[in-house]
Every structure is written in C-alpha cells, then in structure tokens.
C-alpha cells in the first residue's frame, strides 16, 4: 500500500511523529521531535542543518540502525518502528544502502571486496552470481573514478577515495533507498560530479530514493527537496535551498548571536 509522496511518486518511506531520545544518566536527550517525512521512489531528499541537531540520528533511524522511541516508520509498506534488531537487519539488507559518516571500510579487504561485501554477506553466491557481482562492483568503482584502485586496501586510499568506495558499496545491492550521512564531505569537484551523476542515473534507471544529510551546498543543487533540521525538528521546507540556505559564515554568526 503506497500513498503519494511529494512530487507524485509513490511513497517508499514514511515517517510519522518520529521521536528519538537517549538516556544519559538522569537526563533524557531528545534528539528527534515528531519528525514527519515522506520520500517517494526516485526522489532525492537533502536534510541539512548544523552539527549536533539530529542529522545522524535521523539517518540512523531511517537506515534502521536504531529504532525510534516513538512514532511510525513505514518502509516499502512495512511498519519498521517496532521491529527487533534481527528483523531490522533483514529489512536493511533487502532495501537500504547506506553511507555512514567517516565511511567505515573494512581494513583487511581491497576496495573491490569492500564494495562486494554487502552482497557476499547476504548469502553464498553461485559462480555466475559472483561473476556478475564482481562486474558490478568493478563498474561502480569505475563510475566513481576508482577503476585503477580496485585492489588497493583502505590504508592506501585517501579519505576522499575511501568515501567513494563507501558510496559504491551503498549501491551494489541496487537498494530501493540510499541513506547517506554527509557522504560527500571529502570529495573534490570532479569526484563529486561523478558521484552525483551516478546517483542521478540510479534515480532515473532504478527509481532509487536518496535521503542525504549534508552541509555541502554543491550537492543541494541536485536534491528534489531540501529540509532543514534544527534542534531535532524539521523546519520549513525549502524548495530552493541554495538561495535561502545560510552560508556557513552566516550560520555560524546566527548560532553565536543566538
């Protein structure tokens, strides 16, 4: 059962009244306050906002890494808010590709094996499936500009290259939804262009939806929608954020002045 998301696409992800709080000793830290969000297939939603205002928590909740404390989370028609860790892991592996902050790669594996990992962890592949998977991983790495780094281990890659490997890894399972936490923070202009082209192709060809937290103005240009997250609340939707989004200097000034 799908409802209509913004822009008419069928809703892949629906968050309704999502709260998240953590207990630190005697205190409850309320990280997310009643988040309402619908994301349709093929949409790219950018969530921006200052550090410490809940962006990573939101991606963790959407990426099914941790359950919300309250509210409803529908992912591809499945109510995921009340699921246990094992069930969330199954749903995560089936539907979601993720780029985590600091691009967590496995140090003992080559770039190509890191990209292949989500497929290989899922189940034992046949010889033909493995050949297809290798070809796909190679192609994805080539499309993010790392064709000559297939057999390099993360220690031999710079942070920007590691980030591109993590981006390729998030797409290798052909997920319905990609959740990315500041995925382009270490990319230079040409690398960012390649990544954005790859994402656009995934949106167009596979209907992949993206929820991306970012402070990178270059990336916001490609987003279908941009949301401002502030103090754990989604603020007014900004249709054309690059024009309205405060530049880092004025954002800093606003926080200092507050």
């Amino acid at each position, binding site marked *: 059962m799908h409802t209509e998301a913004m822009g008419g696409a069928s809703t892949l992800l629906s968050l309704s009244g999502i709260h998240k709080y953590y207990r630190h000793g005697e205190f409850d830290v309320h990280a997310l306050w009643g988040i309402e969000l619908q994301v349709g297939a093929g949409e790219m939603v950018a969530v921006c906002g200052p550090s410490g205002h809940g962006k990573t928590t939101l991606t*963790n909740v959407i990426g099914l890494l941790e359950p919300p404390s309250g509210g409803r989370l529908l992912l591809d028609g499945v109510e995921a808010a009340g699921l246990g860790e094992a069930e969330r892991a199954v749903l995560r592996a089936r539907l979601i590709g993720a780029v985590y902050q600091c691009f*967590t790669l*496995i140090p003992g*594996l080559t770039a190509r094996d890191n990209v292949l990992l*989500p497929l290989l962890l*899922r189940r034992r592949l046949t010889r033909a499936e493995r050949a297809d998977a290798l070809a796909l991983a190679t192609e994805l790495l080539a499309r993010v500009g790392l064709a000559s780094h297939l057999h390099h281990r993360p220690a031999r890659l710079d942070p920007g290259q590691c980030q591109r490997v993590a981006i390729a890894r998030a797409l290798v399972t052909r997920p319905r939804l990609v959740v990315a936490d500041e995925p382009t923070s270490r990319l230079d202009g040409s690398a960012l262009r390649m990544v954005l082209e790859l994402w656009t192709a995934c949106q167009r060809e596979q209907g992949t939806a993206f929820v991306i937290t970012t402070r990178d103005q270059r990336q916001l240009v490609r987003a279908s929608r941009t949301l401002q997250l502030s103090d754990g609340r989604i603020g007014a939707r900004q249709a054309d954020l690059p024009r309205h989004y405060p530049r880092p200097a004025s954002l800093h000034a606003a926080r200092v002045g507050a």
Partner: protein
Amino acid sequence: MTPARLALCTVRRGWLRAWAALLAIGAAACMLELGAGWLHALSLAACASAAHMALQTLARRRELATLRALGMSGPALVWMLELEALWITCGGALPGLALGAIAAWGSGRSVGPSGQEAALLASGALLPLAALLALSTACLLAALVPAIRAARHEVARGLALLPPHQDG
C-alpha cells in the same frame, strides 16, 4: 564473503598485533610437550586468547559494527571471531609444539607424558595432536565471551566511534 575468509584476512593482517597471544599460546604448547601440568598450560593459553580477543574486539568495534550494519548476523560475527581465535591458537601452538619436541629430544627426554596420561595416549605421537585439540578448545571457549559481547554491541554506537586515524 564467508566469516572464515574475513577471519583469515584479519589475522593475516594482524599477526604482529597478536604477538603476545602467540607467544603465550606457544609457551603453553611447549609446556605441554615437555610434560608440564595440563591445567597450568591450558589456563595460560585460555587467558592469552581471552585477553587478545577482548582487546581486539574493543579496538575493532567500529569495524565489527560496520559488518553488522552491512548484514552480518550476530551468530556469524561470533563465528568469525571464534575462527580468528582458532587461527591465532594454531599459529602459536604449532611452533610451540615443534619447539617443545625439539627441546625434549635435545634434552634426551622421551617426548610425551608419563604414567597414566601416556597410557591413555598410547603413543607419544598422539601428544601433539591431543595438545593442539586441548589448546584449541580452551582458547575457543575463552574467546567466546568477548565474541558474544562484540555481537551484542549496539551497531549505531559502534559506527559513531571515530576511525583510528581520527582518534585522540
């Protein structure tokens, strides 16, 4: 990617980091070959394995959380860590047993235990096998606790840790 292959990759990359555990397990194997008390030798090996795996899982929380986030199940993670412990045990025990055999031969002692144990084993040639089996069992059991603890660690919290090059 099977847990066995991942374990092998990790151990191959981290032999040097495991030097203390390798040394202790090797010494325990050597002790067994030279006829020392089994309880002492196995305790030494088990403590070394438990300490090594506890430190390893602590240092690699982020990596282990990544594997869980990418779809590795809790039992598969425990199995992977147990296999790592097994590789380390074999890596320490085999040279230790060889050294023990050479030392025993060099000192003119018959290789193997005496008395009831020897009768049970029937032949000194069985001793290295029995020692390896006992050491592996002890080390695997000792590594089980840190492995289970690692599998129960919250994935999101593990991912939130800073990567090693950004620590401190």
